[in-house]
């Protein structure tokens, strides 16, 4: 994998200057390669038509291309059936479909669901909102000092509360921890619970195989895997999706509408009411192709090297507590930290002056921050197109921050 040639495929990095862009906010959204931009542009220029409707050649071609991406996604995450792939607007929408549907159809007063303390708000707030209506309980799996799931307590909570559903993130968007999802699914199934996996932070960094993980539902976003915003995927086991009620009602998701009653279309249409984001689906297909051509194993290898380098370099900055696993193994290249006496927002603004883009705040994980006794942190999230030179710039700029604030 040649970083230089790969980097050259991302137009945003072409801008030169005294302080070129060092982009470390990849956990929020990744930059887009030319292949994705071109595919979407070409679709609008030459192939644009409504899908699933028109009987003319242009519409049929658009539909075929749109539906071919479903097969592409199915192969990419190794799903069993193409109708197990639902296009949504992103991870948040995918999780909302599952959670609100499960709550409506299966959860009753006194039931339990189990999530972890490191979940993104997208895996917490939908459960909380549903729990207000259906009066079920939400329990939290605690973390170890290193920021990993405390698997022994997880086992105990499964036995104690017999949760109907478990929600867990594949990779933490703050700590970078890769969770043992396969083991957690195995244990949950043994205890009679179904599992929803948030793969937003893993999908662009490691091979994700839904059959190997064994999970019941899995959600991810296009824009965190070099694709466009506004498109995401919900995977669900066919027999479970069939039992799940639809969430968006309207065009395309119906079988028959009469004055008194509507029957719904089969999968996947049942969950895809309204005109879908066709160009974004095409863009997602191009992003998956980009990942496959580059090779997720290659990407993982390169990112592991970067993570090990960043971990060593950041540990060398004085007064910088770093959260998450101590070793670069079983870890995505996501690093959250603070600097003693300097607010994360000030750090982010001062780094921006050096052309370095990081995130400051609670990263939609307030419960995790509270458990770390923090209001906020700085997050540098890397991916394969980052370089060791950029990490050096980050570390140098961080070292200068304290001096700037305290003189």
């Amino acid at each position, binding site marked *: 994998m040649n970083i230089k040639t790969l980097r050259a495929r991302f137009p945003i990095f072409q801008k030169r200057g005294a302080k070129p862009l060092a982009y470390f906010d990849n956990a929020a959204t990744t930059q887009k390669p030319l292949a994705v931009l071109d595919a979407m542009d070409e679709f609008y220029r030459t192939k644009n038509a409504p899908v699933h409707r028109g009987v003319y050649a242009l519409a049929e071609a658009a539909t075929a291309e749109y539906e071919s991406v479903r097969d592409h996604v199915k192969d990419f995450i190794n799903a069993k059936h193409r109708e197990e792939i639902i296009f949504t607007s992103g991870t948040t929408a995918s999780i909302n479909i599952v959670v609100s549907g499960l709550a409506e159809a299966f959860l009753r007063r006194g039931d339990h669901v189990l999530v972890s303390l490191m979940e993104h708000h997208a895996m917490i707030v939908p459960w909380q909102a549903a729990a207000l209506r259906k009066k079920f309980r939400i329990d939290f799996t605690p973390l170890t000092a290193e920021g990993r799931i405390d698997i022994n307590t997880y086992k105990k909570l499964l036995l104690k509360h017999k949760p109907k559903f478990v929600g867990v993130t594949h990779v933490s968007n703050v700590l970078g921890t890769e969770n043992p999802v396969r083991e957690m699914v195995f244990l949950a199934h043994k205890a009679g619970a179904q599992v929803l996996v948030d793969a937003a932070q893993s999908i662009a960094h490691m091979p994700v195989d839904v059959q190997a993980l064994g999970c019941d539902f899995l959600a991810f976003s296009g824009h965190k895997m070099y694709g466009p915003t506004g498109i995401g995927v919900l995977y669900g086991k066919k027999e479970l999706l069939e039992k799940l009620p639809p969430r968006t009602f309207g065009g395309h998701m119906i079988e028959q509408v009469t004055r008194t009653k509507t029957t719904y279309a089969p999968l996947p249409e049942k969950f895809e009411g309204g005109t879908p984001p066709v160009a974004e689906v095409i863009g997602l297909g191009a992003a998956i192709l980009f990942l496959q051509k580059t090779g997720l194993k290659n990407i993982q290898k390169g990112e592991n090297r970067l993570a090990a380098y960043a971990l060593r370099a950041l540990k060398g900055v004085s007064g910088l507590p770093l959260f998450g696993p101590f070793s670069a193994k079983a870890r995505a290249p996501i690093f959250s930290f603070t600097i003693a006496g*300097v*607010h*994360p*927002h*000030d750090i982010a*603004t*001062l780094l921006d002056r050096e052309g370095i883009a990081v995130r*400051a*705040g*609670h990263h939609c994980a*307030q419960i995790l*921050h509270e458990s770390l006794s923090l*209001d*906020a942190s700085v997050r540098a999230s890397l991916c394969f197109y980052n370089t060791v030179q950029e990490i050096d710039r980050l570390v140098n700029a961080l070292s200068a921050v304290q001096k*700037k*604030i*305290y*003189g």
Partner: protein
Amino acid sequence: MDKNDIYREEILEYYRHPQNYGVMKHPTFEAEAINPLCGDKIRLQLKVNKKGIVEQVRFSGSGCALSIASSSMFTEWMVGKSVRKLRTVGPAEIQKLMRAKIGPARLPCMLLSHVALQKMFPGDERND
């Protein structure tokens, strides 16, 4: 250095040594504001005399250099002002005090103490 720089020495000095920082007992008015971006919280307290003039102001909480320095400057400005004036003052006053160019992403940090003031006296007509 740019004299309108948000990290100029004058502002950093306010951050290192904030004025009116602390908690008072028995305030006449009290309110809290939260910055949803980072969870920073600020508590604003006023002691007002019978004539409706602010005699003492205290603010407390955690915050970045911008929120602490601007709260410090803004609470200094409040002392001696009438409650009537505080009911109408707009966020532009803080910008005037800070004399700083600031982007939309960090603006909520700078205006946090004004949000607390708005919560203290909700529904008032304010200048912008």
